[in-house]
């Protein structure tokens, strides 16, 4: 559970980010038939719709579903399969895993031994330095992908570097970024992480133009927004990649897109990523495991299978708001990757919903009671 401090909902700024949640909520109970006729005691005492809604949320709710990791499907359940499974474990942990560690280590050695000199020596030649660093980061990401035998199929045209465009993708794990980065050196907007990931963020990834922020800092939001605007204007900057969900979702659902990426006045290029969970669940449940454990889990599995689609660039239509635009792009991505859309703001993992939504229900109830009291 997160600390009480973060729960003071930063609702005011979040509110603008989300469309009307009620529009999406499971109908049926939520949308009651307009009760008519004179108000009787029965109508006041009968709180069954509200109660059922609450119990329904306790039994199952779409928000928690978004962040549920699927446990690996056991297949060692009979005497013939069991030795086979043991054999698989043996190979995965004692042969494949050490090989992968070796590959990754070699990758790091090559990467660091060229990155550090390039970074320090080519100070005067910015353009050259940047293009070498770019290829080095791409190469390092390829080593990462190789370290979990990533079987990645890319569909659609490769992204090109030009000003005034942003790429948005659905977000399952930090490896999304690595998978996309091995093809094109994107500059990404990310939550600042602790530990060794944070160190990488502030040293190496900084050089490809990545931007970091802290989710809970309202001040950071403004700074990021400004940096974003500056970044998209530069012609030689790496293409910008944003995960507008703002949090990792389990690749069965999409939560609401933050509108930030959609109000830059740029062409938005949707990228859909769908993992095949046949060998391993690529969802990074950051509450349950650290990124290192997550990587180890991937490295001890047979392979990470995934599809990446670069979809058709979209522009803001005349008369469309940023939120509508975001929803339209979310439609496109969800449709391509076969994900279900839910009306939740992913940040609800870190904060409570604003009282606005409860107030709307109370308003409906009060209006209905008062109106029916008039009816005689």
């Amino acid at each position, binding site marked *: 559970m997160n600390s009480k401090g973060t729960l003071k909902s930063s609702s005011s700024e979040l509110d603008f980010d989300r469309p009307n*949640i009620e529009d999406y*909520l499971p109908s049926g109970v939520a949308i009651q038939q307009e009760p008519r006729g004179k108000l009787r005691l029965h109508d*006041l*005492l009968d709180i069954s719709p*509200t*109660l059922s809604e*609450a119990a329904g949320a306790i039994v199952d*709710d779409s928000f928690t579903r978004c962040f549920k990791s699927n446990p690996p499907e056991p297949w060692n359940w009979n005497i013939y399969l069991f030795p086979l499974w043991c054999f698989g474990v043996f190979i995965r942990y004692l042969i494949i895993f050490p090989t992968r560690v070796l590959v990754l280590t070699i990758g790091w050695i090559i990467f660091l031994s060229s990155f550090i000199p390039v970074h320090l020596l080519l100070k005067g030649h910015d353009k050259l330095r940047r293009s070498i660093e770019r290829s080095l980061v791409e190469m390092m990401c390829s080593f990462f992908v190789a370290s979990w035998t990533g079987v990645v199929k890319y569909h659609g045209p490769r992204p090109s570097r030009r000003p005034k465009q942003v790429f948005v993708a659905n977000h399952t794990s930090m490896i999304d970024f690595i998978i996309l980065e091995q093809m094109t050196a994107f500059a990404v907007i990310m939550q600042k992480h602790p530990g060794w990931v944070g160190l990488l963020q502030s040293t190496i990834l900084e050089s490809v133009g990545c931007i970091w922020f802290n989710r809970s800092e309202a001040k950071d939001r403004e700074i990021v927004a400004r940096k974003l605007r500056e970044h998209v204007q530069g012609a030689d900057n790496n293409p910008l990649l944003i995960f507008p969900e703002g949090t990792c979702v389990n690749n069965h659902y999409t939560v609401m897109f933050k509108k930030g990426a959609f109000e830059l006045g740029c062409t938005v290029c949707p990228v859909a990523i769908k993992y095949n969970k046949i060998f391993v669940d690529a969802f990074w449940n950051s509450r349950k495991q650290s990124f290192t454990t997550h990587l180890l889990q991937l490295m001890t599995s047979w392979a990470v299978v995934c599809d990446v689609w670069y979809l058709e660039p979209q522009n803001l239509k005349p008369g469309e708001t940023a939120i509508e635009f975001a929803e339209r792009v979310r439609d496109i991505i969800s449709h391509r990757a076969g994900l279900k859309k839910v009306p939740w703001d992913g940040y609800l993992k870190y904060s409570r919903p604003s009282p606005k939504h*409860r107030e709307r*229900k109370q308003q409906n109830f009060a209006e209905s009671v008062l109106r029916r009291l008039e009816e005689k």
Partner: protein
Amino acid sequence: MGSASSMLTQYDIEEVQEHCNHLFSQQEIVCLYERFCQLDRNAKGFISSDEFLSIPEFVMNPISQRLLKMVDGLNFKDFVAFLSAFSTKASAHQKIELIFRVYDSDHNGKVSFKDILEVLKDLSGSFMSDEQREEVLSQVLKEAGYSKDCYLTLDDFIKVLGQSGVKMDVEVPVD
């Protein structure tokens, strides 16, 4: 290998079924157990109010605070027993009893004018004034043959709510 459901033995399930008057099938209990474990993040054996409040749909419910007092700290058996009133197999009597318990916050077996006002306040929030609520309530009570000072018992609730029946079914997603 072992998923959460395998931790429940046949005996456990039967015991829980006993406890909820067989209002849930064994399969439903297994699913409820998975859900229980999911909500009980640190596997304490009960769900804390903080964990209930991590469900946005629950927080948005006008009477969530009231319900929270009823469900806070329940172990799995009592959790199922609480939810059993929402089973399709539960009788109208059981459902009305639960509604009564929601109103009867001090557990004294009777519901006063003030108790009903409190719930009404949860339901209407700032969109009705205290005077309006009192006026509405005393009017409908009078029309139903009760006065402002009398207490409603469970039998009264059954009389008032029983005629038209209450729709309060929640399906347990069995997948």
